[in-house]
C-alpha cells in the first residue's frame, strides 16, 4: 500500500477551497497531471434518471475546460456494460475508464491501473470509505486498489403508509417476523406485497441476498472455498420466504426489474423493495401515491445487524489506456464535492455515494422520505459475502444462484433442502480450485 504524502492531500483541500474562495468555477490545480494531448473515453451505465446524465455531462465539460482533456462518454444500459467491458478486457483496447458493477474489476485485476493514490486521497479528503466500498475497490490479490468506488443504487422497502396503517402497523416492522405479520395483514386487506422472484438482476438479487444473510446464512465462507449455502440458517431463510411468498401477489416468479415498479404504481401491491425510482416516478406522474409512499431499511433478523445488498458501481482504468494520469484526474475530479455534490443532488439521491462525507448532502434531508437511502451503503455487504470479491462471486451473482434457490423453493415447489442442495451443487462448481 503506497502512502500518499500529506502535502498532496492538504493540497487538494486547499486547492478546492482557494478555487471556491476566488469564486472560480473550476480552475483547480489537477492533482494528477494529465498527459500531453490526452483524451479519454468513458463507458458508463445510462443514468436511471435523465438528470444523472445531464449533470454528469456538465461536470465532464467542466473537467475539459479545466484541464483541456476532451472526454467522450458512452452511455449504455447497465446490463450491457458487462459484455463491452469484457470485450475491452479481453482485447486490450476500448474505453479508458469503465464504470462497472460489483466484482467486475476483480475478474481482471491484472489488467487494471493501480488507483490507490486516487482512492486513498479521496478517502482522506471526504471522510473515508464505507467498509464495503473498500472491499469492492481494494484487491487483496494485487495488494492495491484496482477501482475507485462510486456508490450504489440503494434499495429500501417502499410501502404505502395508509395501507400499512390500515393493516394495524403504525410503525414499520423492524424484524422479519414482524414483516411477515404485516404481509399477512396486508393480504387480508386486499393489498398484497410483492418481491421479484424472476431473474430480476437488481431487485431480485438484492432482497434475496438480504433475507439469506439476515438469518445468518451465506453462500461461501471467508476462505472463499467452503460452500455454506446448505447449512441451517439458509434453510430457515428459505422457510421464511416460503411463508412470505404465500402472502405475495401472484406472478412474482416472472418479475424482472421493472415489474414491481409498475405494479406498485398501479396500486396492485402495497410493499416491495426498490431504489428511489418508484417514489420519483410517483412524484412526477401520480402525486397522490407519492404522498402515501414511505421508505424503510430492510428489517434485521437473527444475525443482529444490517445485511443489505445494493447495486454497487465503481470506476476502473484499463492498463491499455494511453492516458492513465488523465483518467485518474478525471475520476478524482468527478467524485470531488464540487462535482459529485450537484450530481447526487440532481438525481435526487438515486445513487448513494461511497464516501462518508456525502452523507451531509442536502438531498438526504430536503425530502425526509429520501433519508433511509442515505445510509444504504453503510448497511451493505458485498455480494460475495463472506468470501472475496472476484470471478467466482461474480459468476454466482450472474447465475442467480441465491435467487434461484428461493425461487425453486417457492415458484417451483421444491423443498428447502432440495433447493439448497441444488444451489450448493452449482456453487461447488463455481468455487472449485
Amino acid at each position, binding site marked *: 500500500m503506497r502512502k500518499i504524502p500529506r502535502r498532496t492531500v492538504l493540497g487538494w483541500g486547499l486547492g478546492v477551497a482557494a478555487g471556491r474562495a476566488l469564486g472560480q468555477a473550476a480552475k483547480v490545480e489537477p492533482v494528477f497531471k494529465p498527459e500531453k494531448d490526452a483524451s479519454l473515453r468513458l463507458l458508463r451505465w445510462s443514468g436511471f434518471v435523465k438528470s444523472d446524465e445531464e449533470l454528469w455531462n456538465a461536470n465532464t465539460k467542466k473537467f475539459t475546460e479545466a484541464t483541456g482533456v476532451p472526454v467522450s462518454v*458512452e452511455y449504455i444500459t447497465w446490463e450491457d456494460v458487462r459484455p463491452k467491458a469484457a*470485450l475491452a478486457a*479481453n482485447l486490450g483496447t476500448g474505453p479508458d475508464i469503465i464504470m462497472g458493477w460489483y466484482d467486475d474489476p476483480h475478474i481482471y485485476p491484472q489488467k487494471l491501473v493501480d488507483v490507490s493514490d486516487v482512492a486513498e486521497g479521496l478517502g482522506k479528503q471526504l471522510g473515508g470509505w464505507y467498509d464495503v466500498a473498500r472491499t469492492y475497490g481494494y484487491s487483496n490479490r494485487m495488494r492495491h486498489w484496482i477501482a475507485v468506488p462510486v456508490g450504489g443504487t440503494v434499495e429500501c422497502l417502499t410501502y404505502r403508509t395508509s395501507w400499512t396503517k390500515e393493516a394495524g402497523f403504525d410503525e414499520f416492522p423492524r424484524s422479519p417476523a414482524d414483516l411477515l405479520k404485516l404481509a399477512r395483514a396486508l393480504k387480508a386487506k386486499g393489498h398484497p406485497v410483492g418481491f421479484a422472484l424472476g431473474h430480476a438482476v*437488481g431487485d431480485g438479487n438484492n432482497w434475496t441476498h438480504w433475507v439469506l444473510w439476515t438469518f445468518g446464512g451465506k453462500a461461501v465462507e471467508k476462505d472463499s472455498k467452503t460452500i455454506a449455502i446448505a447449512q441451517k440458517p439458509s434453510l430457515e431463510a428459505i422457510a421464511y420466504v416460503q411463508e412470505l411468498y404465500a402472502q405475495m401477489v401472484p406472478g412474482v416468479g416472472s418479475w424482472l426489474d*421493472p415489474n414491481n415498479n409498475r405494479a406498485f404504481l398501479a396500486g396492485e401491491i402495497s410493499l416491495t423493495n426498490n431504489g428511489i425510482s418508484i417514489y420519483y416516478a410517483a412524484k412526477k*406522474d*401520480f402525486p397522490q401515491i407519492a404522498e402515501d409512499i414511505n421508505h424503510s431499511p430492510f428489517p434485521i433478523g437473527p444475525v443482529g445487524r444490517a445485511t443489505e445488498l445494493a447495486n454497487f458501481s465503481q470506476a476502473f482504468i484499463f492498463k491499455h489506456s494511453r492516458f492513465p494520469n488523465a483518467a485518474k484526474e478525471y475520476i478524482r475530479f468527478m467524485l470531488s464535492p464540487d462535482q459529485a455534490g450537484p450530481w447526487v443532488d440532481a438525481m435526487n439521491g438515486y445513487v448513494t455515494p461511497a464516501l462518508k462525507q456525502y452523507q451531509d448532502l442536502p438531498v438526504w434531508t430536503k425530502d425526509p422520505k429520501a433519508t433511509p437511502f442515505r445510509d444504504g451503503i453503510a448497511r451493505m455487504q458485498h455480494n460475495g459475502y463472506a468470501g472475496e470479491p472476484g470471478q467466482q462471486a461474480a459468476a454466482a451473482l450472474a447465475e442467480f444462484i441465491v435467487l434461484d434457490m428461493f425461487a425453486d423453493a417457492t415458484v417451483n415447489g421444491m423443498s428447502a433442502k432440495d433447493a439448497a442442495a441444488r444451489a450448493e451443487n452449482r456453487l461447488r462448481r463455481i468455487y472449485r480450485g
Partner: protein
Amino acid sequence: MRRLLSIWLPLLAFALFLLFPFYWMVLTSIKPNEELVSVTANPFWVAHPTLDHIKYLLSSTSYPRWFWNTMAVASAATALSISVSFSAAVALARLRFRGSEGVSLGIYLAYLIPPAILFIPLAEVMLKLGWFDRLWALVPVYSTFLVPFCTWLLVGYLKSIPRELEEAAMVDGASRVRIILEIILPLSAPGLISAFIFCFTLSWNEYLYALVFMSSPAHKTVPVGLATELVRGDIYQWGPLMAGALFGSLPVAVLYFFFVEHYVAGMSGALKG
C-alpha cells in the same frame, strides 16, 4: 362462398393473431403515461391520445441517425450477401464438381458457435483488421450469418427450377456463363427477392454485434439505440420505445409491398418462353 372459406375467414384469423401485438404497439405509442400504468383503464383504447412520445423519439434521441445507420448497413450487407450467395448457390446447385458436398456440409458449421459467444473471438479478428467501431465493418460481419443461409435458400430454389431450359440452351451452344446470366438469374428472381427480404430483415434485426462492436453513439443501430437509451435501469419508456419499433419496421414492410408484383412479373415472363 368458396372464397369466403378459402380466403377471407382464414385470412382474418391470421390477421388477428399476427397483428394484435401491433395494435397494442400503436396504442402504446400514442397513450400518455398515466394510462399506460393504470390497471383498470381499458387497454384496448386510448382516452387521450398524445404525440408526445413520437416527438420525444424524434427530437430527444438520435433516432434519425440510428435509422440511417441501420438502413445503410442492412442495404450493404444484403447486397454483399446476395451476390456472394448467388454465386455459391449456382456452383453448388447446377455445376457438378468434386467436393461440393463437403462445402455444403461446411456451411452448417457457420452456425456452430452462436453470436452470443462468437462475438469474443470474432472481436479479436475485428481488432486485428482495425475494424473496431467502424460502422461499415458490420457489413462483412453480418454477411457471416447471412451468406450460409442465403446460399442454401438459393440452392433450394435453383433445384426447383426445371432444367429443360438450360439443357435446350446448351444444345443451342450457349456458354455456361451466358446460361447463368440469361436463364438462371432471371428465373431465380423470386428466390433472390426472398433472400433479399431475409437478409434485410436479419440485418435490421441484429442486436449483439452492433451493441458490442460499435462504441460511438453516432454508430448505433435502431435496435441498439432504442434498447439502450430508452431503457434506464428499471424504467422503460414504453411510448417512445414502441413508436421507434414501429417506424423501424416500415422500411422492410414497404420494400416488400413493392416487390410483391415482381414475383408475378418474373414468373410470367419466364413461362412465356
